[in-house]
């Protein structure tokens, strides 16, 4: 299945740890919308080899299957969609206090 999909190169920033994507100018972006979408399998392997060489910038470079779209590439795998979007939860710790008021009311 993966052979038929376009790819982007992803990794984590070595220092900060956040998810990054390889851009067409050889840099790294936090946004998958700015990732270079590679449709040729051999080209993807070459780009990955290049990215692995960025060993003091990123960690764990690998290829991610994507579906190209009008608003940027969309990862195929569930895990990669979460990596691209960030957590589905955004802890605020504010509702705890609201809940406490509710309970005490």
């Amino acid at each position, binding site marked *: 299945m993966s052979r038929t999909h376009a790819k982007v190169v992803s990794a984590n920033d070595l*220092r900060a740890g956040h998810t990054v994507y390889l851009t067409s100018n050889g840099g790294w972006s936090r946004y998958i919308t700015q990732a270079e979408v590679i449709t040729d399998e051999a080209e993807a392997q070459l780009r990955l080899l290049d990215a692995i060489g960025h060993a003091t910038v990123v*960690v764990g470079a690998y290829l991610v299957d994507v579906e190209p779209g009008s608003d940027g590439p969309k990862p195929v795998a*569930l*895990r990669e969609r*979460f990596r691209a979007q960030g957590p589905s939860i955004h*802890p605020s*710790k504010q*509702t*705890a206090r609201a809940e*406490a008021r509710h309970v005490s009311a």
Partner: protein
Amino acid sequence: MYQHNDFDQAFLRNRNAQFRSQVERRLSGSLTEDEFKPLRLMNGVYLQLHAYMLRVAIPYGTLSADQMRVLAEVAERWDRGYGHFTTRQNIQFNWVALTDIPDILDRMAEVGMHAIQSSGNCIRNTTADALAGASADELADPRPYAELIRQWSTDHAEFQFLPRKFKIAVTGSPEDRAAIAAHDVGLQLVEQGGEIGFRVLVGGGLGRTPMLAQELRAFLPSAELLPYLEAILSAYNLIGRRDNKYKARIKITVFEHGIDTFRAAVEEQFAKIRPAYTGEDQALLAEIAAQFALPDLRENLAEFDATTRAVDPLYAAWAARAVTDHKRADHASVTVALKVAGEEPGDASAAQMRALADIAERYGYNELRITHSQNVVLPHVAREDLPTVHAALLRAGLAAANMGRLGDIIACPGMDYCALATARSIPLAQEIAQHFQTLGLEEEIGALNLKISGCINACGHHHLGHIGILGLDRAGAENYQITIGGHEGDKKHPAAIGEKMGPGFAYEAVVPALERLLRTYLDLRNGAEETFLDAVKRLGLAPFRAALYAEVRDAA
């Protein structure tokens, strides 16, 4: 509480300096990631989905008010203002930068905290009953032994590269509050002919091959603890499998060789090792034990607890769930739920950590515990202070009274954080808790342990949940398998692994399925006295399976 001595402090300083240098060498490229990874793991540093994660050890779940304040400081200065308490009584910071971790470790070392061996194929944090040293039903405090194990296992040269990680849990009470049957080694303090010793279990563990530990020794004299543990580890190190990561845990070693063969291997090692122990460990244990003496508890206390229960139903409802009997009748242990419906189970904000530290300092003899259910315990509180403590917890948003109820869900971080996860856990836990709170059914349902894991590694202990939920990725969509009848084990029910009910459910179908299941329980039970688990034991699984799959359209 155990106070780090000069040796401990120097050890941590050296270790942190060593790790700082390792980080620098990784950043400069003189260490490759393959070389660096095992080094960072041994210092609690993971690379997760979105960020580095730092897992800080809280040995046997015990920490002081000052240590809790430093955790709050770490959350605020270097993370996003919160931390996540885990089922192994540790805390995880989800958003730290690798470049900050050496500073974080130095700050923590100032209050005797560290992240050593909180990951990697070594002996991990030894967990213990969260009520240790306080509970009325305890034979002896297990924490001095846990501390002895910590000192013995830290940087133990022979056990730094085990076939796989190794977890020890210890309890001093007949009521197992440490899930010892689910650990590589489970220790239970028992008495035989007036002598204190251990019942030793081996080979428990969850993950993809859940197994309950078997009895290796019915009684081990307490003085033989370290040589016997060393013998277990040596036998495992020799015959444990290193060819397959999934068959490398000691549970597989015990299963493949059989408990009798494994016991013989342990005894053979023990005969060699025992003579090398000539009493130094017992002298050290005596020094350690002195530091775990009960605090100097106040006397001549007022009856505010009983009088407030009589007039304040909100307080009475909280106290009925949160307050546990203490060794001293005029004191109690207080469990603080980190499980407010709609919040992330086990998370605490920096403000909440500080509030807990303040309460512990003013009313709790400076001591806090983390439970394996991801809650917090104030082990020693004078009963006359309980109403004041309740009011302070209310102000901090920490007075939920759902301990041991449906809302007290154990959930792993799941797909929202974890690099291994196959599905989300936390938002599902939030939806379940909120749904049943909205229905007003939580109290009616009564005692229920619901545990959620976001992958087959089972960090959420779903196998041991009365209801367990396992999240998987099925063809690119989250799919949740439900198990029923699991149990951690107590005096009433032995530990048991839950049974899988059938096909999994799509994310949206889980809450309706649980509602059908629990309404069926309410219909079928013999009055409110019969818990969900009792009803499952009496009726068997069939009516509950039928309820789960009553709406076949829900089954994915």
